[in-house]
């Protein structure tokens, strides 16, 4: 399969994720969109690794996935804490750092 195909899909995933981060209001959906962006980047990474026949691409993907997992754990912990206050966590309402 051509490299381009993978890159396009990766870009699409990333863009969709970015758009979702900017548009969606529910915090859970936001976290999922962030994951989407991460996966898009991982795909691009893996595609280049295969194309250049370099194992480092795949190695980086493993690292990125690990970090993503940790980050999700933290993000969900924040979510759980917030959900005790707000029944539905809307990022629009989280403006207490407003200057």
């Amino acid at each position, binding site marked *: 399969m051509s490299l381009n195909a993978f890159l396009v899909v990766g870009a699409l995933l990333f863009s969709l994720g*970015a758009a979702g*981060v*900017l*548009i969606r209001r529910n915090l859970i959906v936001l976290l999922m969109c962030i994951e989407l962006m991460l996966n898009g980047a991982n795909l691009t990474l893996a595609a280049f690794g295969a194309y250049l026949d370099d194992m480092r691409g795949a190695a980086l993907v493993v690292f990125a996935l690990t970090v993503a997992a940790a980050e999700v754990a933290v993000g969900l912990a924040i979510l759980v804490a917030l959900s005790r206050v707000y029944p539905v966590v809307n*990022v*629009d309402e*989280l*403006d*207490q*750092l*407003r*200057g």
Partner: protein
Amino acid sequence: MRDVLPWLIPAFPLAAFALNGTFGRRLRRFAGAISTLGIVLSFACAVVLALDAGDARAPTLYQWVASNDFIVTIGFRVDPLAAVMLLTVTGISAVISLFAQGYMGHDAAQPRFFTWIPLFVFSMVMLVASDNLLELFIFWEMVGVCSYLLIGYWHERRSANFAATKAFIVNRVGDFGFASGVILAFLEFGSLRYSDIFAQLGGPQTDARMVTAIALLLFVGAMGKSAQFPLHVWLPDAMEGPTPVSALIHAATMVTAGVYLVARMGPLYSAAPEALIVVAAVGVFTAFLAATIALVQTDVKRVLAYSTVSQLGLMFLALGAGAYTVAIFHLVTHAFFKALLFLGSGSVIHALDGEQDMRRMGGLRPKLPVTYATFLIGSLALAAIFPFAGFWSKDEILAGAYLKAVADPGPALLADHGARIFWLYYAAGLVVSVLTAFYTFRMVLLTFHGQPRDVALHTHAHEAPVVMAAPLGALAVGALGAGAILGVPPENGLLHRFLEEVPGVLHLAGAGDPPTAVLAAISMAVALTGIALAYVAYQRRMDLAGRARRLLPGAQTFLEKKWYMDHLGDGLLVLLAKGAAYAAWGFDAKVVDGLVNLAGTLTRQLSGQLRRAQTGRLQNYALLVVVGLVLTVGGLMVFR
């Protein structure tokens, strides 16, 4: 020993000041004795010094300023003039300090009083004995400080505080002139020591106009310190201080500092004849002004205060006529009888438990015999009746004016030639003599003669204790004999011969043999007229005052309002000062504060706008990140 002695004279009072200042609270009544003792020791040293002051010595203590051309030393100038002043200052101060021990005996804070008195004596001694203008100026200020402290001694009284402040501020105006004169003197002569200045006078490089300017500016300082018009306004108010203070500072010593200054700078003034004319004019005008105001005073101390201003004016008249030694002579005799009169009035006030208004006195002669006797002696001296002290010195002043009037005028205005305007001054001097005799005996008659106007006060009156009566006696001896001892024969007495080597003694050209006896007779006649008028007015009750009022309507008010000087001062100076102050305040509050507030407001506005970017919303920040990313990458792609 000879070199140490001059320093002992100020050292003793300084030690008394230090002792009383530090341990006053524990010493209490003993502080007065320490003060008197210190001053007496100082006087003793002054006597020893005077017996030896044939040759002028100038030991220097140390060099204070040494920067390139400007060198100032703290030193002593021991010559006959300084010796005379030292004797007068320390002698009178000792007597007054003793009197004050009795007078201030009931005062709880007297250690404070006896701290400032020796400090004053120290300052006055150093002033008189200094050998350069800057040192003199320093102690000039110091005596002013002591005057302020002592006038405002009863600081719980608002009027006393105002009077002390007024004295200091009016003095400051004079000091502005003094300081200007000192600066010019340094510019002209390159040094401030008297010996250096005198050596350069008359030389080729000295500018005559500068010399005149310096002489006039220094005289402005003297006007402030010696209460000459228009800087005389502080002296009557200074009577708020305790009576010994009035006697010491505002009669015998501090106010004479101006006279001393001009006499000390004699050679300078002799080189500036226009300045001498001004000095004489100011002096004689002040003498007249003050004498007229004294006529209508009801407070016995105020009469004496205006009398002092008037007599100082006569001293300046003598200086202006070139008769420097005569001025000093009158300074000495005046110190005796004026201090005596003030202390006598203090005795009266003490006897009447603080009453000073003559309208509530009367008939005190039988109750206060010693006070009366000494007061009478002082009054006769002030009125210049033969053979009391004042006669000799006052007569010589008038003679000096007369001689200046008749001497050859010469082609240019010269200090040792005549000036016709002195006829006017001589005539004015005679008028002042009449007025002096009149107001003096008006005071005597109102206080001691006639029927007591306040019977309760009169009954409780008691004669002074010995500690107060003895000084009165001592001063009375001086008021009696000082003139005869020091001034006979006229123009050639003990004092004149003693002061002859002092630089600056003038001898008028073509004055010839003065008709001494005639002039003396005129002076006496004039004085006796004044006394007679007073007797007629106040003893015989011929209502001269009523007649005078009808003859010169408004005159009494004019005199009572002190020639409207207070109104003038208020309108002119106070309004000006207030106007300037309000203008400055307006500028500060509106312009300066306005600018500062503007800076603050601008900052707030700006930040108010900038803070709108901080929404606190995650997605706004994320948007900014994305936009930035797109722009960066896009830019890189385009401009690669």
